[in-house]
């Protein structure tokens, strides 16, 4: 029955569903996990695939079809710079999310082209609403979160976050929480920097400007060590006995 109504993105099925969008979300549920947590003095973002810097005040993690993601990220970067050019200020985080969502929604209503198979988590800061975390999906819908997860095993991760997240969590605790949840939801048994991209967004205390830091592989390993989740060196253990 669904077969007849799923090839055209721009028409409804008799039950009032847009199948192409649902299929896009299905593609994302098989993709790499992305996890974001809002702390009281910053945001932590971790991803199995790449993390992108969108602007000096916003970082994004993507889950889904990589080619679609690259295209969207480029659009977001242009949108952020356009805003900077027009208003001489960093684009507010929600506005950037809206710009992308307006683009994505267009692909569900006009043109007959398939939707973007990408969900994004946006972690950003602006002076109006301070630290914010948003999630957008292929339908062009977005919502704000305190902690959320997209991609594979997002159900498990989401319930873990629900249990352990507290309002006013500090950055240090948030980093620990993110790493612990990632290690439980990712396919591998131990986390390593080759499988994990990690980023934080904080406020520079002196200049009061947002600082986005995408961790280098060595720094990711160091963080994992600190949390006790790093890869254990088997050879050393043998020698010890």
């Amino acid at each position, binding site marked *: 029955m669904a077969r007849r109504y799923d090839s055209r993105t721009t028409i409804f099925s008799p039950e009032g569903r847009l199948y192409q969008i649902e299929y896009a979300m299905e593609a994302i549920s098989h993709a790499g996990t992305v996890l974001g947590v809002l702390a009281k003095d910053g945001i932590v973002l971790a991803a199995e695939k790449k993390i992108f810097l969108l602007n000096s005040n916003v970082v994004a993690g993507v889950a889904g079809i990589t080619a679609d993601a690259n295209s969207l990220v*480029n659009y977001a970067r242009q949108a952020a*710079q*356009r805003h*900077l*050019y027009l208003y*001489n200020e960093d684009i507010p985080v929600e506005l950037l999310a809206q710009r992308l969502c307006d683009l994505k929604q267009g692909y569900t209503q006009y043109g007959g082209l398939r939707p973007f198979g990408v969900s994004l988590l946006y972690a950003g800061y602006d002076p109006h609403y301070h630290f914010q975390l948003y999630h957008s999906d292929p339908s062009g819908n977005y919502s704000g979160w305190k902690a959320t997860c997209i991609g594979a095993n997002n159900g498990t991760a989401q319930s873990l976050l629900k249990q352990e997240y507290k309002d006013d969590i500090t950055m240090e605790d948030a980093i620990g929480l993110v790493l612990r949840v990632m290690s439980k939801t990712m396919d591998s048994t131990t986390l390593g920097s080759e499988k994990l991209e990690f980023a934080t967004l904080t406020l520079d205390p002196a200049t009061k400007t947002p600082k986005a830091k995408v961790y280098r592989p060595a720094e990711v390993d160091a963080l994992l060590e600190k949390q006790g989740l790093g890869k254990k060196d088997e050879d050393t253990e043998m020698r010890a006995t």
Partner: protein
Amino acid sequence: MSIMEYNGGSVIAMVGKNCVAIASDLRLGVQSLGIASNFQKIFPVTDRIFVGLPGLATDVTTLHEQFRYRVNMYTIKEEREIEPETFAALVSSTLYERRFGPYFIEPVIAGMQRTPSGSYKPFIAATDLIGCLNFAKDFVVAGTASDKLFGVAEGLWEEDLGPEDLFETISQTMLNAVDRDTNSGWGVVVHLLTKDKVITRTLKGRMD
């Protein structure tokens, strides 16, 4: 009346031994009426590249914002800072895009370029208002006092000047050239770039 002379202002960049200097006046006027003596015309593009934008004041601001947009996109995508030569090409193409309705600016670029061995080489360049590049080895000048700047620079400049000597040379060049131009002056600022730092000094000159 020429549009390039409406607001007034001049910029010069000079090469030294492992250093570059770029200087500009600080005047903003409306023809003969002086309005501001603190109008910035030289902007940092990266830690190691500065661009001077003499000409119509509204285009000074607009071009600065345009370059900021394009250099930000470059940095975010390339995940590294733009090099002076590449930035010069960016300036040239940005100006030529407006070939038949140009920005009334003649940019001057000064920077320190990375060499394969890991050290830095001095770099200067200038373009005309439609983007024709000039990669000089000694100095580049632009603005309402450009003829005078050419004259004094030609007389004072010599090769391999150290940072302190280069500072003295570029300062004397600016001060004496702008004193012979009615639309330049009202203060001079000089930026000296070496491989590890930038020193900015404001000169004490005639305020008439």
